[in-house]
């Protein structure tokens, strides 16, 4: 091949090669962009699905709690009031006690109506929602619970709050149902960049092989991942269970 042939070949090959490069380059970038957009869309859908599921589960949990409160707390108070009223027929000096019991029942009903009101629930901050849960556990003597909040509280988006609260509610529910714990401590640490939640019970703990708890844990982790937070649950037999959750504000 002489010089002229090489030059003619180059004069044809160079533009053709460049056109091919442009087509390949732009289709690679375009495909990648479309793939990322699809992934983002799927992540958004998944987030919305989990959010909706969390809201439904929260409502179910609330209804269960109301049922327990009506049966175990207000129901008991009303039964006591009824017995006291029957006794007061013969001993009228017992009437103030009847009045006290009914008053206590009314107070409990007021607390309960606050829990049922969806508007009140929506307007609650994460700290207020956890405080209500902790107060309920203590009032109903389910478990001795404390809440500690460190740092300046940073308001969160309501969707994020729902997911965080649902994760904690799941943990509390497992603690009360399965752990046989006497104490539950919840700590919220707010810094400028992140919220660290630590919930600890002193129950019987569980093994990693526990399938039932494993599924619950998987749900909690999936939800934590959806809001770009990290969740870990550490447990040992007879050593209690601890939940650690880090949520970055940015």
């Amino acid at each position: 091949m002489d010089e002229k042939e090489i030059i003619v070949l180059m004069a044809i090959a160079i533009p053709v090669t460049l056109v091919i490069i442009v087509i390949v380059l732009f289709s690679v970038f375009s495909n990648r962009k479309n793939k990322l957009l699809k992934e983002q869309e799927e992540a958004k859908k998944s987030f919305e699905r989990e959010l909706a599921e969390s809201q439904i589960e929260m409502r179910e949990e609330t209804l269960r709690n109301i049922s327990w409160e009506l049966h175990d707390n207000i129901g008991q108070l009303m039964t006591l009031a009824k017995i006291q009223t029957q006794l007061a027929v013969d001993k009228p000096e017992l009437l103030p006690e009847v009045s006290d019991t009914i008053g206590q029942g009314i107070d409990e009903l007021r607390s309960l109506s606050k829990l049922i009101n969806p508007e009140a629930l929506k307007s609650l901050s994460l700290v207020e929602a956890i405080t209500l849960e902790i107060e309920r556990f203590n009032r109903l003597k389910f478990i001795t619970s404390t809440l500690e909040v460190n740092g300046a509280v940073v308001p969160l988006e309501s969707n994020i709050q729902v997911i965080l609260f649902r994760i904690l509610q799941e943990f509390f529910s497992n603690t009360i149902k399965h752990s046989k714990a006497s104490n539950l401590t919840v700590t919220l640490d707010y810094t400028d960049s992140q919220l660290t939640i630590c919930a600890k019970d002193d129950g019987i703990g569980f093994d990693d092989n526990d399938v039932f708890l494993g599924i619950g844990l998987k749900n909690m982790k999936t939800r934590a991942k959806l809001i770009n937070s990290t969740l870990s649950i550490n447990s040992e037999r007879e050593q209690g269970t601890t939940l650690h959750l880090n949520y970055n504000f940015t």
Partner: protein
Amino acid sequence: MEAVVKPLEYIFLTLYLVVFVISLIRFPLYKDSPLKYFPLILLFTVITEFLGGYIRDFIGTSNLIIFNIYYFFYFTLFHYVFLKAIEEAHFKKYIKVGIVLFWISYLRDILLVDIFNYSFIASYIVGAGVLIFCIILYYISVLQSSLVLVIKNDLLFWVSVGLFLFYIGYLPIKIMRTLFFDLTKFYLILLIIQFSLIIVMYLFFLIGFIWMKKR
């Protein structure tokens, strides 16, 4: 054929100036990015081209020394831009190795090649090769990140496309011209392709400046 070459030369020299002026107007949008030295490269290119043309047309001596010096700063600045733009530590390491290779080859050319009368072909090939390699690493880096979603508004992407196409097309021409330099009509074909490549490269720069958005 020469009737085509001369207007093309004027077009790309005008494009150099236009792109340089636009780069200054849009400078506030990218002054905090690794491309902040880009106007400096463009100014350096404009000065070199005009000075080279002046020496060739009015003094009548070889202007190769101007271009031999120019390539060193041109490639080093672009290598630096990609070194800063890419975040992956292992890619940065490869680029650093590439820069050192280019400098060694340049030093070899200074010692062994007559800087006044011959083109520094070896270091040019290494410099352009390293630049193509940097651009490929930059594309891999972008494709692995979410930056790909807003790539249309990224100045460096359009600059890199322009550079990539230019050097893929120009490297074989440079080698051919250095090996068998002879101004016959066949070589003029390559000159037309070379000037067209410059125009295409600067048009991509122009698209970048027009479509760019501050990140």
